[in-house]
């Protein structure tokens, strides 16, 4: 219990620093959201008019005051308005979050399934050359930029083979290619780790014994590897959250999907500070929660680590 309280305190500190650091970083950028939106020559606004607009956004006071104002708002659950869209931030994030959660959640599950399938096939498949080809696949897949993979998948599966539409697809169809795009690069390192542990298990002496008793290789692998596989998967789950978000930006852009990733990218481009502050809080929250969960689950899965210092 004390451990949990300690971890929660740590998490709150991380949240506070992340929030403050982002605010400082965004203040330092050249120009601001109001300039980007209103200084366009097309609007022909005079400097006085722009000053008025700035005042109406509360952006004419010193940064410290703005910071305190923002913090006060966030504490009360008021995230403010997006400068770019004029929409309340909670509305923007609320409409983007489900899409990204579906994409990232399915992406993660698919990545694990792909990795397991790849690892097993590369050990069990007939023909040495086929196993080799399958083993080389993860190395290749981590060497390809995600956006490139997305474009190739669209060209091949949607435009050439016409299996899944990209435009006018139903919600399930619309997820197939984006989920693959997100999952493939993440599955690759996972598959490598799994394949290695399968190799180790196969060389273990007890396997020969079990085999001698008539158990098929698949059964042996399944029983013993499944347990070994869970551990690395959980270990990298924390790291994967970051990769899923990074991958989501690119995937959402290539496929023209709504989501947190694209929202982030556009908010940075337009220096939409209220949106970015809210995204940082959200991301940091997910990060600390996932890490806390991983740290709590880890000892359960691996008895060797029970109550041994797993800090940091």
């Amino acid at each position, binding site marked *: 219990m004390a451990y949990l309280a300690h971890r929660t305190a740590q998490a709150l500190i991380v949240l506070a620093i992340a929030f403050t650091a982002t605010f400082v970083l965004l203040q330092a950028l050249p120009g601001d959201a109001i300039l*980007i939106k209103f200084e366009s020559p097309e609007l022909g606004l005079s400097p006085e008019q722009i000053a008025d607009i700035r005042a109406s956004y509360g952006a004419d006071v010193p940064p410290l005051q703005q910071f305190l104002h923002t913090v006060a708002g966030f504490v009360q659950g008021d995230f403010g308005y997006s400068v770019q*869209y004029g929409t309340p931030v909670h509305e923007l994030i609320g409409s983007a979050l489900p899409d990204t959660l579906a994409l990232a959640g399915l992406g993660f599950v698919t990545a694990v399934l792909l990795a397991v399938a790849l690892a097993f096939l590369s050990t069990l498949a007939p023909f040495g050359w086929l196993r080799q080809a399958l083993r080389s696949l993860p190395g290749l897949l981590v060497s390809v930029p995600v956006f490139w993979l997305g*474009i190739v998948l669209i060209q091949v599966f949607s435009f050439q083979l016409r299996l899944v*539409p990209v435009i006018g697809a139903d919600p399930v169809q619309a997820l197939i290619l984006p989920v693959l795009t997100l999952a493939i690069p993440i599955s690759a390192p996972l598959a490598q780790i799994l394949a290695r542990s399968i190799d180790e298990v196969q060389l273990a002496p007890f396997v020969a014994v079990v085999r001698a008793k008539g158990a098929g290789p698949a059964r042996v692998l399944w029983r013993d590897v499944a347990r070994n596989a869970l551990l690395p998967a959980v270990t990298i789950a924390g790291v994967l959250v970051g990769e899923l978000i990074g991958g989501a930006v690119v995937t959402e852009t290539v496929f023209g999907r709504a989501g947190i990733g694209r929202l982030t990218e556009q908010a940075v481009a337009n220096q939409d500070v209220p949106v970015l502050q809210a995204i940082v809080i959200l991301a940091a929250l997910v990060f600390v929660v996932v890490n806390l969960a991983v740290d709590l689950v880890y000892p359960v899965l691996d008895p060797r680590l029970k109550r041994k210092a797993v800090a940091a």
Partner: protein
Amino acid sequence: MPTQRPRRIAAAGLAALAITALLASCAAQSGSADAAATGEPVTGGTLTYLEHQPHTTLYPPQAGFYPNGGIVNNITARLTWQDPESLEIEPWVATEWTVNADATEYTFELRDDVTFSDGTPLDAAAVAKNFDTYGLGNTELGLTISEAINNYASSEVVDADTVTFRFSAPAPGFLQATSTINSGLLSPETLDRTLEEFGAGSSTEIVGSGPFVVAEEEIGTSLRLEAREDYDWAPPSFEHQGRAYLDAIDIVVTPEDSVRIGSLLAGQADAIRYVQAFDEAQVSGAGFEIVAAPTRGVNNSLGLRFTNPLLSDIRVRQALVHGVDAQEIVDTIFTENYPVATSELASTAKGYTDESDALAFDPEHSEELLDEAGWTAGADGIREKDGQRLSLTVYEAKPQPLSKQTLELVSQQLAKIGVELEVKSADAGSYATDILDPLATPLYHSMVGRADNDVIKSQYHTKNRNTLLSNDAELDRLLEAVASEPDPAKRDEASAAVQDYLTEQAYVIPLFEEPQVYGAAQYVHGFTTEAVARPQFYDTWLDKQ
């Protein structure tokens, strides 16, 4: 541990080659559209239309941005209609109008059967409120003045169907202004919204007067327009009256060029905006239709900010103008839909005059001019004078088609006359800051479309876009003459005078006449654009089965 690690790299290479082969086969894609003979228009169906960028606002004066304009054009009616071919102004919501001799007073008679999409009548009071907002702005709500309206003073509701507008100085461009999307008629209640409340996310609440309404919106990704059953006030010159043929239009934002084109060719979309020049052959080769509509305004060009000390010498500016080969740019990067510029204005623009002789590509003359101005070749081929290199900067302009490739080629051409042109890319914040500084941005890549003589004033006047960051009072005076000359013939002369002056002073390097290029499947009929190339879905119908 298995042994053949080296082969992994080889196998990986093979797998990559397989992908290459698949991609290569993409190049030979076959067409799908069935060529149907044009028969009777069919009512019904949904058009899937792919946009390049998400729209930002539906406030009409800010609808110049194409994604905004494409929506505003279809959800609002205007007082008048400008024929995209003849550029004549015809009745729409206004049945007739009178203008006084010096163009300071306009009176419009309105149809009495027009309603907004919430059912409220579109009467003289509503029209007056629209133009009071667009002509004077509303600081409290953050609503800006329309750049199409000059010298606006006041409105007067004469009776329910008659409204009069008065101007503080002659405003000959106002009649055409009433036809542009910047003057789209919105319900009086909608005009009480703040600028933010016109933004993306609240589109379904914008109440207009056009053939379509915004029915659904997903911020940044898609928007659905649905036809108004009760729409019955198309411009009388249209053959088609009553409601639009289409039931609905799904506007889907698809920023990736390859995805937009591929979706069209694979039959997943019916029409798309922004077919890049390099994709045109692929689209038409597959049996799809290319619609290239001229924008009839100031050409795609490079403004030379003469307040930058390096460009203050007219000989340097002239050298730059004659050192750029616009023909090579068009031949290399663009297609025949992008005519080489022959003036600062497009040949299809109002008030155009031919300046091609004075703008001709002549690198030898450029070198002479630079020699004369005291710029001599330095060690690396770039000219120098008093220890200063003739090095200039230009920013890639994201809204212009293939701006980066265009500027890279211009840079290559200028290098041949000993001028260095550094092409920069920047984030929106740095760009917005730097383009206002002639030292940071001596050359500025831009264009503007509007089918009225006023367009040249929009681009160059110090109180409008001021793309030259000018301090030239003479230029302003000439531009004001264009915006205030009531006699049409004299107005064209005033436009010509501005073009002569810009050429003479070498303030601008015109490149090409920029079109908007759309792609559509063969079964899409009646896909047209308004005078400056915004899509017009009213007449569009589908012949799918």
